[in-house]
């Protein structure tokens, strides 16, 4: 490999041209190849010097200016080579000094953001003294390795779908007795917080609810309606407030199934006093926009309001609109999405005839899946969307209604 010399020759275009000129015939002619000309040895090439001093590129560039230029090539190549394979080292805690239990929600089988934050909080306690984080949830632990789980206890699969909080609390109490963990953390979510309070009441222990900051010798929470901060040594049972801890990133732990001496799922003994749980159908238009999961939205490109209403009903989606639509009175003001309306966090946003003004897009930053229908290929909404259809909204809406009705009856 030829390394560029740190000293570059000085270019003298006139001298080069003179060297290439052949004076034969009537007019001067130029040779196609440049001929070597005199070099000005004093000129420095800062780019080449910098490249030679570069030791490492990832995670940020580092330079070693004291090195001699001759050995530069080899080391620089190594630095780049390492950067190309960013493998996260596996962290193994073979002999944990103590255990921290993280009881996760996993709503619908997915590891939620709040679950990751609970594991991050548990790591704060575990890493302070060589402890291990044991996650407890339904489903396998594979998805939890990157979140920071060392060991995993899988609850029976059937528990994911039915709501029997007493059974979960019994399982947590049994694990608490079997593993004697130093701390047990729960998410402070409606379900997780409920189970945590059941466990605390059954064990007769104090629950430190809604932890906002955590260290090995101090935990804090909001009390007195949020006006005071209460600090205490971490208690055995704690719930972790939402968005208090950043989820871990760039770590890899084992999440190995924990072998328990005896099965601890003894929750079946006493018949649960709560039962027959089932989801109720809710009227989507009665939900506020910030609460709903599925929004059907109309912009100035919609003129067929009859179809729009029918489509909302057929999809079971909450109807909303851009400011132009609400100003014109087609929808009430509280159905306006955007900077001066509602900021929504729905999972799915189906937009008909919306141009995608910045004020509108600000309202849908939190939306996961956007579908846009617009006649203008260059609309901002089309760029934002995960599925974009360049077509007339007045034609697509009735076609979609027909399709949904067909599939429902089939």
């Amino acid at each position, binding site marked *: 490999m030829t390394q560029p010399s740190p000293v570059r020759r000085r270019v003298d275009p006139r001298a080069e041209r003179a060297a290439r000129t052949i004076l034969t015939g009537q007019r001067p002619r130029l040779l196609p190849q440049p001929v070597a000309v005199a070099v000005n040895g004093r000129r420095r090439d800062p780019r080449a010097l910098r490249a030679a001093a570069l030791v490492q590129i990832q995670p940020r560039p580092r330079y070693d200016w004291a090195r001699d230029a001759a050995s530069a090539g080899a080391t620089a190549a190594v630095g780049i080579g390492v950067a190309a394979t*960013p493998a996260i080292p596996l962290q193994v805690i073979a002999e944990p000094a103590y255990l921290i239990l993280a009881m996760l929600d996993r709503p619908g089988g997915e590891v939620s953001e709040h679950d990751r934050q609970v594991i991050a909080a548990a790591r704060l306690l575990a890493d302070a003294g060589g402890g291990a984080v044991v996650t407890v949830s339904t489903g396998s632990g594979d998805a939890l390795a990157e979140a920071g789980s060392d060991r995993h206890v899988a609850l029976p699969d059937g528990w994911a779908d039915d709501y029997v909080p007493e059974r979960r609390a019994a399982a947590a109490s049994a694990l608490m007795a079997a593993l004697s963990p130093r701390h047990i953390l729960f998410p402070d979510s409606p379900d997780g917080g409920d189970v945590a309070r059941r466990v605390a009441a059954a064990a007769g222990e104090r629950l430190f609810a809604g932890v906002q900051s955590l260290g090995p010798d101090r935990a804090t929470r909001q009390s*007195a309606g949020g*006006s005071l*901060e*209460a*600090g205490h040594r971490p208690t055995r049972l704690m719930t972790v407030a939402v*968005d208090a801890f950043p989820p871990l*990133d760039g770590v890899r732990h084992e999440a190995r199934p924990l072998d328990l001496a005896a099965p601890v799922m003894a929750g079946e003994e006493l018949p649960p006093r709560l*039962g027959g749980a089932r989801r109720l159908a809710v009227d989507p238009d009665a939900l506020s926009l910030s609460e709903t999961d599925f929004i059907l939205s109309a912009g100035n490109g919609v003129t067929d309001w009859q179809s729009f209403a029918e489509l909302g009903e057929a999809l079971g989606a909450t109807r909303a609109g851009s400011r132009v639509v609400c100003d014109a009175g087609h929808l009430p003001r509280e159905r306006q999405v955007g900077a001066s309306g509602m900021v929504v966090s729905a999972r799915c946003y189906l937009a008909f005839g919306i141009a995608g003004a910045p004020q509108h897009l600000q309202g849908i930053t939190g939306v996961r899946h956007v579908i846009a229908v617009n006649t203008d290929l260059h609309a901002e909404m089309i760029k934002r969307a995960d599925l974009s259809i360049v077509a007339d909204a007045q034609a697509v809406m009735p076609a979609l209604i027909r399709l949904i009705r067909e599939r429902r009856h089939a």
Partner: protein
Amino acid sequence: MLDVAVLLSIGRHPVSGRARRAATDAQALEMALALRPRRLTAIHAGPPTDGEALRAYLGMGLERLTHLVLSEGADPVEPLIAHLRQFDPSLVLTGRQAEDGEGSGMLPYLIARGLDAAVVPDVVRIGPADAPNSIPGAADLVQALPRGQRRALTATGRFVATIHPSAPPARASAYGPARRGVIEPVAAQATADLFLSDCEHRPWRPKPKLMRVKRGGSALDRLKAATESKSGKGQLLVNPTAEAGALAIYDSLVEQGMLP
């Protein structure tokens, strides 16, 4: 038909700090009044200075209210259980989390353990949801879930229900009934709450909001991830027939789990 007890705590206005009726406790009282029980017991446990704020509950149409008088900093759980045992209610309604004091939301669970009752959190309706085939001896309840969803369930035997903020709103408190209502003070013995006095308290200072920034990559990548909503690398259909467009939307919605 029922014997209902409501536990009422003193709320605190989030800005002015003035004592008032606690929001979800007032909703619990509203629900208790709407159930038209055979006997309704409303109980508050706290220091004698709480009396004036309790009148806001009386103004909702409650005739009398029991005030278990405790010393400052005492744990209200034991006296409340002892008092509730005398009445033996089949249903105890409470708020979700107190607006003052520790506010850990543990009290309903401790009461339920003391009375050997079930706990149902986040209730928005008591009574048959839509199904008439209810089991005798069981109560039909509707619970509020995140994202505006609702869940119906049944509870057998005695239970403690905590009320969710999206339950029916509490009626306004009227001045006349608030003055006419009777607060019955009952002296009670309680131990001091040692855990609470062990905590150090200081004014809450808002923390910076947690941002979900992507780590790694170049500064430009991180800036983009933090400021841009999403780079559009989606699927694009240009001028399909209406049917083809509708089918693409339909498939995408099914994939997202929005349609069955």
